C-alpha cells in the first residue's frame, strides 16, 4: 500500500516539474523573453537599448535560460513568483486574494455538485433505460453541451434582470469577507454546477450500470441480500472506482469552466486575473496562475488516486493504473 501511495506522490511531483518546464519554455524561451512579450511597440519606440538592457538585468533576463528556470522554479515551489514587469509588484501579493476566491468558488461548486450528481446518477442507473434514465441522460447531454458563458448569461438574464433577485456582476473587492463572497456567488456557482452535475451524474450512472450487471451483484441478489444493501454496499462503492478515474480528468475541465464563469460574472478570482494578465502580456502573472492551476489539478488527481486506493484493495498492491 505504501508503495502504491509513494508511486502516486512521486509521479505527481514529476508531472509538476514537467508542467513548470513547459510553462517556462512556452512563455520565456520561445520565441522571445518575458520583456519582449510584455512591451508594446509604443514602449519599444520610447525606450533606448540601454534602458532595455537595464530592465533586462533588473528582471534577471540577461542570465542563461537554465539558470532563470531554476531560480523561477525554486521560487515557485515556495510561493514566490517574482515581480510583475510593469508595476514591479510581487506577483504573490497580487494573486493571493483571487486565489482564495477561486478556491472558494471551486469548493462551493463541488459541495453542491457531488451529492446531487450521486443522487441523480444512482436514480438513472437503477431505472436504466426507463423513463427516469432517459430524462436524466438526455438532459445531462444538454447540460454539458451548453458552454458556461451561455448558461451564465442565461441565469443573469433570468435571475438578475427579468427577476432581479441576484446581482448580475460581483462588485466586491478582491479580498471581501468570505461569507459575503459566498452570498453573492450563488449564480456563478449555479452556472458551473449545471455542467458538473450533468457530467458527473452520467459518469456515475455508467459506472453503476456496469456494477449492477456484474456477477457479484447477481450473486448477492441470489443470496437474498436486500436490494438496498446490494446497491449501496456492493454496487455504489464499486462504481466509484471507474468514476473517480474519469472524474479526475474532469477537474481540469472544471477549472477551465471557472475561468469563463469568473469572466461572465466579473468574479474577482484567479481566472479573471489570468485573462487580464494574458491581454496585458503580464508574463509572470500568467506563469503563476497557470502553475497554480496545474497544482490544483494534480492535487485533485492525487486525491482521486488515493481514494481509489482506499476503495479498491486490488490496486493497493499493484503498481497502479499506469
Amino acid at each position, binding site marked *: 500500500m505504501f*508503495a502504491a501511495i509513494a508511486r502516486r506522490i512521486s509521479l505527481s511531483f514529476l508531472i509538476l516539474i514537467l508542467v513548470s518546464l513547459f510553462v517556462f519554455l512556452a512563455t520565456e524561451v520561445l520565441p522571445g523573453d518575458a520583456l519582449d512579450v510584455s512591451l508594446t511597440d509604443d514602449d519599444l519606440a520610447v525606450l533606448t537599448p540601454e534602458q532595455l538592457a537595464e530592465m533586462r538585468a533588473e528582471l534577471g533576463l540577461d542570465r542563461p535560460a537554465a539558470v532563470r528556470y531554476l531560480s523561477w522554479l525554486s521560487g515557485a515551489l515556495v510561493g514566490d513568483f517574482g515581480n510583475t514587469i510593469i508595476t514591479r509588484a510581487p506577483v504573490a501579493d497580487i494573486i493571493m486574494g483571487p486565489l482564495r476566491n477561486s478556491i472558494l468558488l471551486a469548493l462551493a461548486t463541488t459541495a453542491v455538485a457531488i451529492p446531487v450528481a450521486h443522487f441523480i446518477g444512482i436514480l438513472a442507473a437503477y431505472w436504466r433505460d426507463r423513463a427516469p434514465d432517459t430524462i436524466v441522460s438526455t438532459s445531462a447531454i444538454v447540460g454539458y453541451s451548453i458552454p458556461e458563458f451561455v448558461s451564465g448569461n442565461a441565469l443573469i438574464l433570468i435571475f438578475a434582470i427579468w427577476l432581479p433577485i441576484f446581482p448580475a456582476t460581483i462588485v466586491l473587492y478582491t479580498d471581501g469577507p468570505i461569507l459575503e463572497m459566498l452570498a453573492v456567488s450563488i449564480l456563478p456557482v449555479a452556472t458551473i454546477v449545471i455542467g458538473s452535475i450533468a457530467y458527473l451524474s452520467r459518469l456515475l450512472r455508467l459506472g453503476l450500470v456496469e456494477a449492477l450487471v456484474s*456477477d457479484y451483484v*447477481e450473486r448477492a441478489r441470489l443470496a437474498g441480500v436486500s436490494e438496498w444493501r446490494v446497491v449501496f454496499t456492493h454496487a455504489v462503492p464499486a462504481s466509484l472506482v471507474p468514476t473517480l478515474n474519469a472524474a479526475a480528468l474532469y477537474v481540469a475541465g472544471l477549472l477551465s469552466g471557472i475561468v469563463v464563469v469568473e469572466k461572465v460574472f466579473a468574479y474577482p478570482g484567479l481566472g479573471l486575473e489570468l485573462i487580464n494578465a494574458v491581454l496585458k502580456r503580464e508574463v509572470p502573472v500568467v506563469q503563476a496562475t497557470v502553475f497554480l492551476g496545474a497544482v490544483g489539478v494534480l492535487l485533485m488527481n492525487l486525491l482521486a488516486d488515493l481514494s481509489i486506493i482506499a476503495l479498491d484493495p486490488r490496486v493497493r498492491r499493484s*503498481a497502479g493504473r499506469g
Partner: protein
Amino acid sequence: MLLDVKNLTVGYRTDDRQFRIAVDGVSLALDKGETLGIAGESGCGKTTLARALMAYTRPGSKIVGGNVFLDGTDILALPDRQKHAIRGSRIAMVPQNPLSSLTFHMRVGAQIDEIVCRHEGLSRRQAQEKSVALLAATGMPEPDAIYRRYPHELSGGQRQRVVIAAALACRPGILVLDEPTTALDKTTELRVLELVSQLREQFDTALVYISHDLNVIARVCDRICVMRDGRVIEAGDTRKTFASPVHGYTRRLLDAIPRVNASGPVRPLRADSGEAPILEVTNLKYRYPATGLGIPFSPKKPGTLAVQDLSFSINRGRTLGLVGESGSGKSTVASVISGIIPPGSGKIAFDGVPLNRAAPERPADLRRRIQMVFQDPLSSLNPRLSIGRILMRPLRVFFAMGHEEARQEAARLLERMDMRAELLDRFPRQLSGGQQQRVALARAFAARPDLIICDEVTSALDVSVQASVLDLLLSMQAESGVSCLFISHDLGVIKRVADDVIVLQSGEVRDAGPTSDVFTAPSHPYTQLLLEATRNVFDVRPAASDEAALAVQ
C-alpha cells in the same frame, strides 16, 4: 417432492427487440437429498434454467410460463419480498466464476455475514462466528485469516470454497451449482467436487449441478437431464443414461468425451522414423522478467522461474503432448519455441538449427517452418479482416503469391478443412467457434510448416466441436507429415492426439514417455492424481472412434 418444475419457459429480448425462448417448457423434479445433473453445451439454456429455479432472471429476460413448486408452493407466484426471503435461505446458488462473483472491495467474511444476518437475524458477532465456522467446514485451514481477506488475495480453489460456504450459510434445502469448477484446474476441481459431496451429506442438501462436463456430472449426480436448445431431451438415472443413451444427441455427446482410461491404444502409433528429431530442447530454463514497484530507483523483485531445466525432443511426424495445469509453465515452453518471447538459458535446436532468438529476428524460412495455433479461436483471427484476407496473408508473406493465386490456394485450404470456399468473404464473428478454430488451423497449415505448436486449441470449444477439430488435426497431420507440439490441460485430449507425453508441474517434469506407458503406468504421484481427476467415471460405452481404432489394428 422438494422441488417440482412444471413447463418452465423463459424468454429474453434480443438486441433487435425480438423475443426468443431460452428455456422451453422444462419440467423436472427433485426430492430431498437427491442430486440432479443438468448437462448441455454452451447456449442450451442451462444457466438461465438454473436462475429461473430461484425465481430469478437477468434484466431483459422474463419467465413467461410454468411453475416452480418448492415444498408445494409455487415460488414464481410469490410477491418479491418472499422471493428474496427464499433465495439464499431455502434455495441457494453457487455461481460460475468465483472471482467475479465476489465483491472485490469487501472482505469475504462480510459477504457471508450479510447473508446470515439477513435470513437468520443474527447479531454481527454471532454472524461472524457462524461465518468462520462455515469457512472451516469447507476445509480451509485458517478460517479466521480467510474471513478477513479480500477475494483477490485468495487462490481459485479458496474462492470457490468461500462461495460454497456463502451458499450453504443458511442450510438451504437445495443447492444449485452453476458450472462451479469450470474455471479451476482438474486437481482443484477434484478436491472441490469431493468437498461438495461431503458437504451435501453433512448439510443434508439436494443438489442441482449444472455443467457442460458429463464426466463431472457422472461423478456427482444420481440423475441427469440433457438439455439442447432450451429443452430437456433426455432424463434419467446417470449410470443408465451413460450406458444406453436414448437420444442421438446424448450419444454423440458421450462419444465426443475424450477417453482417458480406455484400455489399449486409442489409435495406431506412428512409427518412429529413426531420423534425427525435428526439435531438441536441452536444459531449457526460463525466468519471468523482474517486476518493480513503479517508483523510480526502487529495487526490483526478480521474476519467478517458469520453466526449470526442461529437456525433450520431438521426432519427425510425431506428436508430443505437454500436459500441465495453470502455472505449470507449459505455455511458456510454447512461447519460447515459437519465438513469442526470447529464450532463457538452455539449448533449442530445430532441425539442427539453434533457436536462440525471438521470431522477428529469425530467418523467414524458419518462421514459416514453425507455426502456432492459439487457444481462443476468436481472438486469434483479426475481427476486421475477411477469412480470405486472413488466409492469404501467410501465403503472400511466405510464398510471395499473387492475389489470385493466393485466393485460390486459400479456397483449397478451406476445403481441406471441410469448409466451403464461400466463407472466404465472411468475417470471423460470422463463424461458429469450431469454424474459427478450423480457419486458425488452415492459417497455420498455409505456411506448410514442419512443426506445429497447438496451445490448448480445443479448450474454448464444446466437446462435440472439440472432437471434430481433433479429428481434423489428426487427418491433416497424417496427410502432411507435420510434427506437433500439443499443449493441453486435458489428459483425454492428449491421449487422443499425442504419441509421447510430458507431464509438467511448477515448471518441472513429473513424468515423460510414450503416451500409452504414462497413462497406464504413471510413475509420479502427481500424474496419478491428474489421471484420477480426469478419470471417466462410467466408461461403459466404448467410443466409436476407439472401435474403429481397434479395428484398424
